[in-house]
């Protein structure tokens, strides 16, 4: 933490993530649909791998009950 190209960007991101995680639970949305991973801009391969894996996981969960929200 703190080792961010955007200074304290990752600190803010983590704070925002934790808050969203709590909100998602209160709203009754499955919390596994939300994930935080740290990927630097130099790690294209890793980014693609995580995105592919997470997309696969969401597809296997199927659509959530929220269709037209937000």
């Amino acid at each position: 933490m703190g080792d961010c190209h955007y200074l304290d960007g990752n600190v803010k991101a983590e704070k925002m993530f934790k808050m969203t995680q709590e909100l998602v639970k209160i709203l009754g949305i499955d919390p596994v649909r939300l994930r935080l991973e740290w990927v630097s801009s130099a790690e294209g391969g890793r980014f693609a791998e995580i995105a592919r894996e997470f997309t696969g996981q969401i597809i296997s969960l199927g659509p959530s009950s929220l269709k037209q929200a937000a």
Partner: protein
Amino acid sequence: MTAIADLINTTKTYYCLDCGVCTGSCPVSRVFPEFSPRQIIERSLYELEEFSDHTIWNCLTCAQCSIRCPADINFPEFIRLMRDEAHSMGFDGVPAHNGMLQTIMSIQTQDVQQNRTYWIEEGKTQETGDVFYFVGCRPYFDVVFRDIDAGSITAAQNVLKILNTCGVEPVVSNNERCCGHDALWNGNEEKFKQLARLNLDLIRSSGAKQVVFSCPEGYHTFKNFYPKYFGELDFEPVHILDFLADKLSEGVIQLEGSGEKVVTFHDPCRLGRLAGIYDAPRKILEKEMPRSRENGICCGTSGWMNCSSCSKEIQLERLKEAGDTGAGTLITACPKCQIHFRCAKAAFDLDIEITDLYDLVADRLKTE
């Protein structure tokens, strides 16, 4: 006839005397002269106003103007109807907090199984019963505004404690939805109706005859807007302050004196000017601010929209006014007033304490 001319007819804005009391009274105009209720009405009457006018989103709809208007023009309602039309044309205000709160409201229009009663610890509640406690958005605010130490949920726990002390075990439900107040004042009538329908179905299925509110916005919306859109309610909306005043006069509960702590009260616009509740909170008040009751100033932002340096200026002035009375604590009875003032307190590093009325009441509740 143009849409604005229609609005003028429904709200009888043509009675405007052009006296300017509205703009003279407006807390926004004082800090942001580009916003003027009088000019919005004048421009509308001369067919010069447009729905794209971005200043219509700056109105706090706090009703300081309309309560003083000699022609009895309901300017907040005029603005609400303007926003409805503007929203349908694709114009909107600037949502505060990146629109997160509007998203939370939208999600609640959907078929979701919320876990919003997580805060009930020792309180006694029931699945069905005569009294429903409508908690409102506090469970969400408590998470979103933790960084300014808003303490939103403590007051809900205390309201439940007060109800339990009075011998009431209310229904508190995970299926409660946002009351729709903000959707209504953001110009999103459709979203309001979706939320309201879900709440009405829920209350009907709980069998409640009374619905108790501790949030002025929820109370005002249920009491005045739900019947307007859905006809007469089959339950009675009761504000906890009226409920408390009754229990105090019946001697069911007693409050202890304040001791060392001196407090002053900030009248929330929805509680005072819009719902007419002024006297009940004053039973525990020591110091009155110069601008109180009908003249109480708004907390600076409404409907999670257009929060700006102007809002901060209004809040700072209000907190100074509270401090000048000699009180060390400002009491509010609205979760949003509390959030806005605590935000300003943190931003300007002020000394004054800001406390929710129900935290104070629970603290002074005499127990056997």
